[in-house]
């Protein structure tokens, strides 16, 4: 599962610490998600998507092989 966190952060001028505070998670978790080392829970993914005012599927990119 890929994501556009880094790109969206740059678009909205947010650093990892700010995003973490807004999503009520740690900066370490933001970093893990960006490095694709951790797949967030649905609630965290929804919170992040809401911060960027984007639907979840625009932030977290599902690929066909994820459904196989």
């Amino acid at each position: 599962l890929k994501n556009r966190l880094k790109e969206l952060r740059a678009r909205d001028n947010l650093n990892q610490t700010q995003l973490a505070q807004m999503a009520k998670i740690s900066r370490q978790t933001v970093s893990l998600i960006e490095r694709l080392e951790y797949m967030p829970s649905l609630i965290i993914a929804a919170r992040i998507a809401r911060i960027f005012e984007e639907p979840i599927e625009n932030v977290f990119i599902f690929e066909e092989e994820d459904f196989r």
Partner: protein
Amino acid sequence: MKHSFSTKVLIVVLLYVMYRFAQNKVWTNEEYALESTVVYVSNIVCLVLLLVTSMLSRKIVTKGEESVAIEEEDNKQLFLERTFHRLTFYSQLAQSIGVVTLIGGFLLIRDMEPRMLLYTIILWVLTWGRMARSMRLISYIRPDFTLPNPKAVDYKDQLLDCYDDGEKYVMLKSLHKLYYALQCVLITLMFVLMFYSIFSGVSQLFSIIAIGVVMLFMQLYYLKGVQIKN
């Protein structure tokens, strides 16, 4: 960087004990010279680690209160997280060395050097105090992190719930590796003790059985935790 009061006290104490060590005043009894030296050196190591943790705590407080530009915020946060990680590591190391020195010292020098044993106990208590104080510094790393009441019955569960999913995932991965590594270490240790018993003629059967019981407890506890319910 200004040093805190506890750092200054620890530096003075450390210099004094090292001076005494250099003056060779530690061991008065020839028969117990080696044992006393080992306990004394362990205490010095513990004291050095306490000093390091005190300095790291100060670093966290100073950096945590510093205001930086938005583009520097991530670097500051990373610095705080890494420093806190080092602080936790050194605190736990001091605690482990403290307890080993205390038990070893009690067995080796309790009759000959009771005062040194008292210092060891004080040091061990200090390592616990340092650990508790270190935990409070987490508010600089995670301002939303509120430590649960230590008197709470489910303190451990509450503490775990304070971490977010990402942090729990990192912990889980590390604990999973530790579980398997510990089993290998304990089995190796049992074999080492078996050969030690054979070659030295000193039976280590009790230790081997104790390690076996610990291993059994570990496996049962783990399997109980992951058992399938319904």
